[in-house]
């Protein structure tokens, strides 16, 4: 575990008086895909937002390549090579499709991803590159959100329910591409409701329940029954 690229130790998170995460522990090793599953409201999004620096209330709890990053601003976290595909896409409305992608890579980190490669992955985006991003269909917007995160050439990409709103054919295509992408040195944490899909692409899996880690295991070996229990409590 010493070589974990990312580790959470007793991560708590609050929205006002409401506590959304209770002492979450989680590690991510370089080059692996970690799946996070859990019922609605379990705190998955909250966890990813904490890592990305959008909540900034856990100075001691988040460690990236050995350094504490919990107190950093989101832009500082991004500069360290962590990218988030946010829940709900959140594109920049006044930027065109292409500008949305370009701005994803504006930190100028070196890596395999370029505009061209994103267009290869989602050809429709190239067709629409000058269109205003919010006039895209829901699924097309999701593609831009994914492409935008990849453009950063991050070391770690956090993907929050990326298959939401995508047609099955696209989902299939993305998950087929994922191993290849990870193979190039990327590490990924994915939040996914489709448990079968989540288990099939990940090496390890965590299950959150009401803000706590209720299960942790190897994706290939963890028993289905345990997962059901972890989801809904005993």
């Amino acid at each position: 575990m010493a070589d974990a690229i990312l580790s959470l130790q007793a991560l708590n998170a609050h929205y006002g008086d409401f506590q959304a995460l209770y002492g979450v522990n989680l590690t991510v090793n370089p080059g692996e895909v970690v799946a996070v599953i859990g019922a609605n409201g379990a705190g998955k999004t909250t966890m990813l937002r904490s890592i990305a620096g959008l909540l900034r209330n856990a100075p001691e709890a988040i460690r990236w390549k050995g350094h504490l990053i919990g107190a950093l601003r989101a832009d500082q976290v991004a500069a360290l090579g962590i990218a988030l595909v946010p829940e709900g896409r959140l594109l920049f409305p006044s930027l065109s499709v292409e500008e949305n992608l370009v701005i994803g890579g504006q930190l100028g980190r070196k890596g395999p991803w370029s505009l061209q490669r994103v267009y290869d992955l989602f050809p429709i985006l190239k067709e629409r590159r000058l269109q205003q991003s919010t006039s895209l269909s829901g699924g097309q917007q999701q593609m831009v959100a994914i492409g935008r995160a990849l453009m950063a050439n991050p070391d770690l990409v956090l993907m929050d329910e990326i298959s939401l709103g995508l047609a099955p054919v696209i989902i299939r295509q993305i998950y087929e591409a994922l191993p290849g992408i990870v193979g190039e040195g990327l590490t990924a944490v994915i939040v996914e409701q489709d448990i079968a899909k989540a288990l099939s692409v990940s090496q390890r899996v965590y299950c959150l329940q009401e803000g706590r880690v209720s299960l942790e295991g190897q994706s290939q070996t963890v028993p289905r029954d345990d997962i059901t229990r972890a989801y809904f409590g005993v």
Partner: protein
Amino acid sequence: MDWLNAILQGTLLGGLYALFAAGLSLIFGVMRLVNIAHGDLIVLSAYIALSFGVSLGLNPLVALLLVVPTMALIGYALQRLILNRTMGEDLLPPLLVTFGLSVILQNVLLMGYSADPQNLQAGAIETASVTLGPLAVGVMPVMVFVTAVVVIAALQWMFYRTALGRAFRATSDRQDVAQLMGLNRAHIFGLAMALSLAVTALAGVFLGIRTAFDPAAGGARLIFGFEAVIIGGLGNLWGTLAGGVILGVAQTIGAKIDPGYQILAGHIVFLIILALRPRGLFPRIDG
């Protein structure tokens, strides 16, 4: 002939309005921040130039070298210390904060300089004149117009062709997501406001040379600025220049009909344009 003169003078006046509006356009048209204090900031820069002029004996045009960076600094500080906390979806918080700022500025200036009208004296260039065929035009107004065109060209290029411009737009769209792209929103907004007030410094000094100003003179200039931005269309700086010129020409032509209609004519043309094209003449961004 005299119509031609009215149009020419109006166009030149429009250059000054476009300068008022350019800084506003940046902030209002692109970041959706309604800066009610913009007019007062214009007046503030005129007073700063006045003070430099008095204390260092500088011609106001030379004083620009000091006023522009001073205003830019003020803008950066203002944004980072105060305005950044109000940026968001809601129109009202920044509007109200700048309302407060406007009242403060006016009264601080009133305390510092009294209500007496002041004037920036630029020397012979103030009354210098060139003849264009049958028409005589002032060197200053032409200089103002050219400055406006240059400033607007530069801003437009910066906004739509450079990474900084993209960063401005992205950050004003969604601040937290922009942070995820590695943009420090506080700094980005600070830069935008610094830029806006740098332009404001030019507008203020030219205003002070053209006419007298007092601490309350900002309001009337502010409304012309907003009108120019809106006539031009959101997010289009060339539109803002066109808006300024339309406004200036409407005023001089209105004044030709009856001087009482000078300002009224500008406002009415503005309302007519909006009635026909609620998003302005050349909108670039969806309002």
